[in-house]
């Protein structure tokens, strides 16, 4: 187990190094000049040079990469060009907001998805199953910016049940006004819910046809017990990896959803940093998203091995 953890964590470190290099290279070729963005159109060449020197942009790229990554490893992500304050401070609050939104969506989506999936799998080919299956196909096919706007039109503009924008006043957290979370979370949930549901349904159907479920039925057990003791523990195992894979999808979704609803999270930050050519901020956010993805996969593998006696990590 320890050996597995050491191996996996070193693998994550290597992954993040590769990702950081990719991020750095991409930001290098990004069009636009930071100095002219900061100083505006009328800046003189000497002023521009001074700003560049101040930001360290005159140094060769490899040197800049190395010092960036060395500082990041120590927890110092540098300063934002635009906001002129430490990135760590900017990111902290935003990351918290995003995690709240993602966690809220996750808690809504996963249990519902599993419940629906199990039900549809057991009642295979029934009307309910077909409605659920078609509904999930629709949910998968619609991109977030469509579902988001649709929900906004229905629940905010027409019914006036929920706020259409999820802007936060400075100094407050989303938990002070939880109702602003509902629409973005619902939007975010769609795809995740549909995916996990479809996989759960497929697994339940497969397990229902297995020999050991036949054994359980022919033991004379009531159907309820067959499902809870024999079908679910086996059918839900693969769901864990599906959920982990979809965390990555959800992180991508966050960027869109946060922008649609103007929610102050890490996704919106990523977009503002791109628009403002705020390279250090952009790099930090991208790296953070990659790290979250890697860690969630590790957690999925760990929980899978704990729940599956056939797998012993070494």
């Amino acid at each position: 187990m320890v050996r597995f953890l050491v191996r996996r964590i070193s693998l994550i470190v290597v992954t993040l190094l590769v990702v950081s290099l990719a991020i750095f290279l991409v930001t290098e070729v990004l069009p636009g000049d930071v100095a002219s963005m900061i100083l505006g159109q009328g800046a003189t060449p000497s002023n521009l040079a001074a700003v560049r020197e101040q930001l360290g942009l005159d140094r060769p790229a490899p040197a800049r990469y190395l010092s960036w990554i060395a500082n990041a490893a120590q927890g110092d992500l540098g300063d934002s060009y635009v906001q002129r304050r430490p990135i760590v401070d900017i990111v902290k609050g935003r990351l918290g907001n995003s995690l709240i939104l993602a966690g809220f969506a996750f808690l809504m989506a996963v249990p519902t998805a599993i419940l629906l999936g199990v039900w549809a799998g057991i009642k295979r080919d029934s009307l309910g199953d077909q409605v659920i299956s078609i509904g999930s196909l629709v949910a998968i096919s619609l991109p977030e910016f469509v579902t988001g706007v649709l929900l906004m039109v229905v629940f905010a503009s027409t019914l006036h049940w929920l706020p259409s924008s999820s802007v936060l006043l400075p100094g407050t957290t989303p938990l002070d006004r939880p109702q602003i979370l509902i629409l973005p979370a619902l939007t975010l949930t769609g795809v995740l819910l549909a995916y996990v549901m479809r996989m759960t349904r497929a697994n339940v159907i497969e397990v229902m046809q297995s020999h050991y479920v036949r054994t359980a039925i022919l033991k004379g057990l009531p159907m309820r017990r067959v499902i809870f003791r024999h079908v679910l523990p086996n059918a839900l195992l693969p769901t864990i990896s599906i959920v982990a894979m979809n965390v990555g999808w959800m992180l991508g979704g966050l960027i869109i959803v946060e922008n649609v609803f103007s929610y102050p999270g890490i996704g919106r930050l990523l977009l503002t940093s791109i628009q403002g050519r705020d390279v250090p901020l952009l790099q930090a956010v991208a790296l953070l998203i990659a790290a979250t993805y890697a860690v969630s996969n590790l957690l999925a593998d760990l929980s899978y091995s704990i729940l599956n006696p056939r797998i012993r990590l070494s």
Partner: protein
Amino acid sequence: MTTTQTNNAPLMEVENLSVTFFTPAGAVRAVRDVSLQVQRNEVLGIVGESGCGKSTVGYAMMGYLPGTTRLGGSIRFEGQDITNISATELRKLRGNTIGMVYQDPTTSLNPVMRVGPQVEEVLRQHTRLSREQARNRTAELFESVGLAGPRRIGRRYPHELSGGQQQRGLIAMALACDPHLLIMDEPTTGLDVTTEATILDLILDLKDRVNAGIILITHNLGVVARGADRVAVMYAGHVVEQGPVRTIFKNPRHPYTAGLISCVPQPVTHEGEDHVLRNIPGSVYSAQEETKDACLFASRCPMATAQCTASAPPVVDAGDGHLSKCFYWEQVNSDVWSAAETTQSQAKDPNAAPILTVKGLHHFYGTPRRRFVFFGPIVGRPVRAVVNVDLAVKPGQTLGVVGESGSGKTTLARNVVGLIHRTSGDIKLQGEDLGPGVEDRAKGQRSAIRMVFQNPTSSLNPKLPVSHALMRPLKKFQGLKGPEARERAAALLQAVGLEPGHLDRLPGELSGGQQQRVALAATFAGKADLIVADEAVSALDVSVQAQVLNLLKQHQQEAGTSYIFISHDLGVVRYVSDDILVMYAGHVAESGPRNSVLRPPSHPYTEALLSAAPAPDPDAVPTRIRLPGTVPTLRQAFTGCFFAGRCPRKVGDICDTTPPPAQQGPDAPSHVIYCHIPAEQLKELQLQRSNGKQDEVSISA
């Protein structure tokens, strides 16, 4: 459980049962007309080829027929017709008064649940035992089915048990609530011969211990001959014959039964002239066909007349409860099946120069490779799959290789063919070195060795027609062009008993037996000098197995091809082989001419294998040499004898400390036995045992 049965009513009575499944591909008439009875303290064997409806009858008795099904007739258990009782009442029978044991123990146990709780669950459902009492009772049950350390076993997960242990666990589960009826669906199929023997012993022991009726469903006539009191023979959803086991085997009154019996290779201990296996031509009447007013077996029957296709035969009583569904039951005898045509076998020269020699072959799996510290899999010590194997195959002759699963047979075959790269050792074909992999070998060498695999369904490309499999070797190795190749391919199909019309079929449209014949034809097409057949007939029904075996023998006589024939079935190996190599845990235990290996003196492992194989003869005296456990997976070299851990004739410390010497057998110089017990003494001990005397194994060291 309240029962209202009178004392002489049968425990289970099935009358005119028919079961039809409705599938998207059409109606499947799995059971057409079955009537049978089982009493308490009686074992009823149900036999027949696959697709005859045996298992469906078993599951129907459990009220378990999934999908859209139409059921006719009645199934009365203790007076209650279970075809129309409520789900709740059915649940009270299942696992309680009717227990069931399944074919594949590995997949029949819940993989994420410990074995103990899986049994406790049955007890908790049907009895008022407390959690603690259920746990104790489970331990007792495990003990009673021969699981040592029952509490420890109960805490294991299924994958931590061997196949034999899993099956014992399932039997314990079926016995948990003292069932009145025990249904066993192919309980020993898929297990090694040695494990099969121990499970069969357990079933027979249960018959005396539990006061229950037992239904033993199997395709293995040997199992029925040893285990059953009465036998029902099923064909195409009908019971075509039923009666007491001795009568059925000695005096069959249906040509199908007579045919099945003559398809099975003679028991390995059988002395005397070589016989030729009889064939039942064709394949089972398809369950998708309508039931006709005719004998459904007529198309394959050598005795069929116009009457057989004009009307269905009635059930006749041949006396003594012996029922047959044949118009000509009085004329049935074992000669109704003509032997396959064989040309007089040419005298084989036991001293011919070998076509293939293997010297000092080693194959280790998972040899550590150079790798980055954190990435590649962590490779422990390599598994020693084949250790120091020598063998020789003579031209036009067959070397049979036997051993339990895990003994290294397949690894050996793959090394010879070049599918995997040997760790060390030499392989020579006609005196010339063979490279480790096919890619290292000359074109001529590649076409000289061909392989036939166990599972034809997965070794033929499902998307390409049969012609592709046959024409490819013809074009590649014999340089034939399109039309020529097609013509030759058609001829090959006819040689294996198929039609040229089969050329354009997809493998999926053929039956398993037909597919294996296509695979054989493709192998013959390459004009190989040596064919390596790895369990090539294991997945086939006895009738088809006999067809394929005879085909192999016939081809050998015509083309002079040599075979390496790998099988776990000693009867089959005996039938086709000139020489036999017995493998255990990657080592050669014994090798030599067939009759020398099969007759005493034999290696104790060979002796155990011989004794484990159930003979299709109810009068055969069962010999009780049993090997517990399974073949070990070896990561370290043995300090002593490779077989010491399971040897029933172990003589002492010498077996653990010193590798056994190679001894020459008395009859043939090429007969080699790796054992510490001197050959003369082995012979004496084994003759004593077969004469029924108890023996004490000792060595004068």
